[in-house]
């Protein structure tokens, strides 16, 4: 009952004209960002964050979340029409979606993706509505050791699950931690890694780093061989976009399964929309009566992954808002944004800022309705944006990155920093170092250090506090398991090979 009255209060916040306008703006921008190859939701949220500086925190986060889940919808357009995923979570959609487009069924693929995304996304928001307050209430019992363990778990799972090499992911996370230590130590007042530069005394802000790594880094990487996109000719009239009864019958279970898988995977720190869509595709193929059709234009291969990636984007907000621990690059950027507005994500957010939390939840219901309308009725308009040459679009993205970094403190030093991290982002991309752990570690670094210090003050300097408290012990054990899993797997392989030889 409490939840429903809170939700009603949230709708009263989300339905104000300003919030509705920025929700619409967010989902439109998100769809465009998702549709444009080479710029993902993390970059989109980071680049557009400075635009929200003049807004109230709730309006700002409504717009940023709109960009996030809007990007999940938008990624489908390029996957289906060009066979180039707009962002990584749409990779699996391209497999069957593009084949459907080649058979003249692009409209059906885009339609079922939009409807599946809407149903799974809304389902995810319903689960979030009832689950998040329970998790937040449970998390109220967490002390500094539990938070320390939780953040270590978030960092290790993200590092363990992103990128091809765990060493590289961990190195990126360690570098992010290093960056978070730059500046004046809050306890002792000692200047760390500032190299006598006054600009560095207040630390390295996450925004120039995120904009550089995700925005400029991506632009530089794609500039090596800018391609003109060849869009498949397709009839995208309303009649063609609505799925037929046969399509609907084939897809309904895929949408349900995708939605559940997406929410569960999305809620895990480190996993995310991309992994959810891969798992959903594998599950659909396995449970299908016609697995041979997958890869040839099976509609379930579009419905499942698309439902999963949307539901995952809602699931990813669970650890961010209830525990204050982001599980992905985009939610890390959002957490940084919330902290800039003076809000501290975590269980207390539900008690101290209910209008903010429930306004955001209500806006997600509204955003999903707006998105399904946009993605069914206005697909041709989004397709036209794809015709803008990359050679024109990329410079415009860079200009927005530069101005965005400047806006943070009205300081050109941040722009230089953004440029430096842009080059670093390019090099990291070339060498397969994932940027997400770096940004997450930068955002969490100070909190990790503070909770470590608080824990050791409580225990009188004994590290045993982390293993004697059950929740932190379990969380640290899971983190250790994630780190050791690859080593144990290769050890098992060696033992098996030796056993078979013997």
């Amino acid at each position, binding site marked *: 009952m409490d939840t429903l009255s809170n939700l009603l209060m949230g709708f009263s916040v989300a339905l104000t004209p300003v919030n509705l306008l920025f929700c619409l703006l967010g989902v439109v921008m998100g769809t465009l960002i998702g549709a444009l190859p080479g710029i993902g939701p993390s970059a989109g949220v980071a680049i557009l964050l400075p635009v929200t500086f*003049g807004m109230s925190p709730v309006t700002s986060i409504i717009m940023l979340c709109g960009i996030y889940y809007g990007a999940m919808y938008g990624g489908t357009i390029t996957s289906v029409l060009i066979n180039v995923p707009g962002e990584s979570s749409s990779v699996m959609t391209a497999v069957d979606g593009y084949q459907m487009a080649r058979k003249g069924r692009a409209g059906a693929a885009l339609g079922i993706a939009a409807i599946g995304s809407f149903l799974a996304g809304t389902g995810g928001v319903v689960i979030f509505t009832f689950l998040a307050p329970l998790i937040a209430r449970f998390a109220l019992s967490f002390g500094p050791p539990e938070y320390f363990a939780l953040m270590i778990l978030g960092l290790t799972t993200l590092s363990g699950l992103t990128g091809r090499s765990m060493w590289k992911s961990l*190195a990126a996370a*360690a570098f992010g931690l290093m960056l978070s230590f730059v500046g004046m130590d809050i306890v002792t007042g000692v200047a*760390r890694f500032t190299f006598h530069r006054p600009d560095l005394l207040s630390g390295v802000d996450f925004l120039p780093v995120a904009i550089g790594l995700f925005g400029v880094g991506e632009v530089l990487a794609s500039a090596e061989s800018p391609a003109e996109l060849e869009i498949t000719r397709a009839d995208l009239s309303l009649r063609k976009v609505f799925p037929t009864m046969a399509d609907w019958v084939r897809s309904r279970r895929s949408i349900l399964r995708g939605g559940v898988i997406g929410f569960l995977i999305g809620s895990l720190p480190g996993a995310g929309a991309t992994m959810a869509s891969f798992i959903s595709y594998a599950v659909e193929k396995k449970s299908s009566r016609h697995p041979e059709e997958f890869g040839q234009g099976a509609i379930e291969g579009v419905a499942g992954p698309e439902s999963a990636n949307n539901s995952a984007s809602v699931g990813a907000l669970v650890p961010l808002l209830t525990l204050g621990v982001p599980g992905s690059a985009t939610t890390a950027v959002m957490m940084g944004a919330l902290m800039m507005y003076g809000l501290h994500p975590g269980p207390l957010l539900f008690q101290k800022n209910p209008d903010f939390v429930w306004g955001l939840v209500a806006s997600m219901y509204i955003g999903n309705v707006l998105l399904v309308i946009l993605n069914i009725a206005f697909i041709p308009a989004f397709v036209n944006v794809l015709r803008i040459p990359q*050679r*024109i679009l990329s410079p415009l993205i860079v*200009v927005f990155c530069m101005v965005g970094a*400047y806006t943070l403190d009205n300081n050109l030093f941040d722009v230089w920093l953004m440029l430096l991290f*842009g080059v670093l982002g390019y090099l990291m991309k070339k060498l397969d170092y994932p940027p997400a752990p770096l940004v997450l570690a930068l955002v969490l670094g100070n909190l990790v250090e503070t909770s470590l210090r608080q824990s050791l003050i409580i225990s009188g300097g004994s590290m045993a506090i982390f293993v004697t408290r059950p929740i932190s012990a379990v969380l640290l054990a899971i983190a250790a398991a994630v780190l050791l899993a690859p080593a144990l797997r290769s050890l098992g392989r060696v033992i098996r090979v030796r056993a078979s030889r013997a």
Partner: protein
Amino acid sequence: MITAEVVGGLVVLGLALFTGAQAASMPYLVERVPGPGFAPLWSAALMAICGLGILAEVLRAKRGREPFVSGPGVLRVPVMVGVMGAGVGLAPYLGMRLCCGLVTLGLALAMGERRLVLILPAAVGAVLAVHLVFGYWLQVPFPRGLVGW
């Protein structure tokens, strides 16, 4: 590519050693509680282990010998970085808005676009968008430069 991977591993290792040395000069514990050097030192240790892990992984793997950058990207990326750097460097003298237009122009040319009918409206559009969204709406005090805008 393998050379670049090895260099990458060495850079991680070097960074770890440098930050470790810096962290070692700060107090490790202050009244039995982690001091300013505690967390950086352990992060440096983690980074050093990662650097060694990366080097071992790279040297063990049989990777192709494809170049780090090939084709037009060899020149394009440094030129683009140069254009961006020049844009930021000139912002105090020419004004931020004007520099945004020049950066758009320079980057489009660097990326191989030659149609002025596309480039010029994009550059003017960038200047106007920056002025309207950030200068006018958000009241961001941009450097005005010698031109005064």
